[in-house]
């Protein structure tokens, strides 16, 4: 099963979701290991095969798959600086994505963007390194597609930290005003870098903020792929049918630090201990088996994800770096 296969039917959807979650995890597990190559013993961010900052989405995979299961390649998605799980669920080419993360010529953007700026125009995916930056473009894309008479929609993923940005409020107002076919997805992992949601956000649930903009607001607890799939399905259908925007806040868990190398000292020890029991992939596999899915089939999915991740990493490692002139070729059309 390819990670960008169009999911059809609910049984297939669940297997597709499982596959995409595992695919993201397998790629990120490798990225995390490789990230430290050449950087130690004295940590140097610029060194090694994967330079720069690295933000992993480990634990947040259900948010990506539950939403993207409803999307087509022609739907427009903006993601955050923690983008890998969404990129994979949206069908971004795995090899080119890995190569971009390594800064190679074969990368999505020939190494000009890096891990926080993954663009794949073939599936209308982009992400951004600045908090809240993708929200307004998603509204604009949604309005544009409506003007063009398409029934495609836009989805903007953001962290819960982005909801305190002015951009969030401006974009939601515009979306509601213009009945834009857009779904706003807040991945609430409870931390904006080191500051907890409780210490930074005046409302317990950002879904409540939807009321201020006259749109439905939904809170989905539990980091549960099935529940996310249900909630997103309704919102996507509403948007496609001309019913306007929806705000969905998803409870999720960041099982790693904000960035690779983060010592996570700001998280209470008890909270850190509990994370081990919250791995959504382990939990989802157990549920799939309980629901009668064949363990061998799930093993095969995992084996394929491992194989594709290894292939993508090898492709990235073996690719050449871009020539210096590449940097000058894409400033202007």
């Amino acid at each position, binding site marked *: 099963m390819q990670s960008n296969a169009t999911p059809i039917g609910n049984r297939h959807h669940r297997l597709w979701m499982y596959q995409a979650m595992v695919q993201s995890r397998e790629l990120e597990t490798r990225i995390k290991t490789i990230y430290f190559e050449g950087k130690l013993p004295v940590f140097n961010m610029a060194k090694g095969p994967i330079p720069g900052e690295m933000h992993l989405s480990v634990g947040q995979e259900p948010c990506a798959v539950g939403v993207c299961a409803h999307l087509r390649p022609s739907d427009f998605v903006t993601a955050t600086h923690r983008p890998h799980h969404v990129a994979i669920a949206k069908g971004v080419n795995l090899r080119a994505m890995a190569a971009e993360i390594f800064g190679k010529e074969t990368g999505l*953007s020939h190494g000009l963007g890096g891990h926080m700026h993954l663009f794949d125009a073939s599936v209308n995916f*982009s992400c*951004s390194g600045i908090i809240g930056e993708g929200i307004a*473009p998603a509204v604009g894309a*949604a309005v544009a597609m409506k003007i063009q008479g398409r029934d495609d929609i836009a989805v903007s993923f953001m962290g819960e930290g982005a909801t305190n940005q002015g*951009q969030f409020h401006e974009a939601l107002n*515009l979306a509601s005003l213009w009945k834009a076919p857009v779904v706003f997805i807040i991945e609430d992992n409870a931390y904006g870098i080191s500051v907890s949601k409780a210490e930074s956000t005046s409302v317990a649930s950002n879904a409540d903020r939807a009321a201020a903009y006259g749109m439905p607001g939904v809170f989905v607890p539990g980091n549960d792929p099935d529940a996310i799939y249900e909630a997103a399905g309704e919102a996507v259908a509403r948007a496609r049918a001309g019913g306007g925007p929806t705000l969905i806040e998803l409870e999720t868990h960041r099982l790693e630090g904000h960035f690779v190398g983060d010592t996570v000292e700001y998280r209470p020890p008890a909270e850190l201990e509990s994370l081990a029991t919250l791995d959504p992939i382990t939990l989802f596999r157990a549920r799939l088996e309980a629901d009668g899915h064949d363990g061998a089939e799930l093993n095969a999915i995992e084996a394929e994800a491992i194989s594709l991740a290894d292939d993508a990493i090898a492709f990235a490692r073996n690719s050449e770096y871009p020539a210096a002139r590449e940097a000058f070729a894409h400033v202007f059309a």
Partner: protein
Amino acid sequence: MSSPDTVEKTKSSATAPRQRRLTIARALNEAIHQEMTADASVVVLGEDLAKIGGVWSTTGGLLDAFGADRVRDTPISESGFIGAAVGMAAVGLRPIVELMFVDFFGVCMNAISSLAAKQRFFSGGQVKCPMVLMTSVGGGYSDGGQHSQCLYATFGHLPGLKVVIPSNAYDAKGMLRSAIRDDDPVVFMFHKGVHGLGWLGTVPRAATHVPEEEYYVPLGKAAVAREGTDLTFVGLGLTVHHAIDAANVLQKEGVSCEVIDLRSIAPLDRDTIRASVRKTGRLIAVDDDYMSYGVSGEVIASVCEDAGIALKATPRRLCFPDIPIPFSPALEPGLLPNGERLAALAREVLSEKRT
């Protein structure tokens, strides 16, 4: 002064092209009308554009002609609608966005500098950002330091943005049509001092004959607004007219000045600047933006970096000083460049003895 919109009948032949003298505002409006007619993907959005036609009279009549889907009044949410325009551009529209005063760009700088300017680069050329961001610049009418700045260099400094400033109506129309068809984000600045609104003074020379038929003025090319042999003035927007005023005065004193109208500061047409100074040997850059780190410094550096240019005098500049723009009519006019001050500076340059 007759109305700038007055149609001037040609004197002799009935077959000569009809001369239409338009203001920059009217020329811009016509450019948008024509491009929207030619291309259904061109849309307009911004504050007060649809119903009242824009506070700078750039978008009048568009709502009636093209409907509310394509001509949209926005809330006062600059980050929101400029960010939205980037998303529109990414999926195939060609948005024209107006934000009244360049002074306001601080509230939405990320949408411009991190988003619009970098879409193409970050995507390795996969995603284009064909949008035009129109705004007014310039002071001289006591509107205070939040409504009178130029900020040319601020935007010229950001890679990925084209930044253009017309000095007359012919260029304004041709440059805007080029900007709308350009696949890159273009910051299109119009100077209030040449724009041609009744409630603001304007330089009559900026209202020119504007052909109705299709024509385009290329972006990134400077123009020789006036030819001369003794000294080169380099300006943009309103200061081109100050330079022409100074050149007219100096001509009576037997000095021949060349005037370069930059038209575009990003990309900057260094070749045209250098060719002129190679000929004249003397350079004065004039800019109504703040002096330091500005367009004037870039112009002078462009010349000084060319070892093939033999200078007869030290290059000089006349700019707004590095202070916020004051309100009082006793203060602001004396700080802004004008033709008289420029002519005085030119006399200094012309009398310089190089040792």
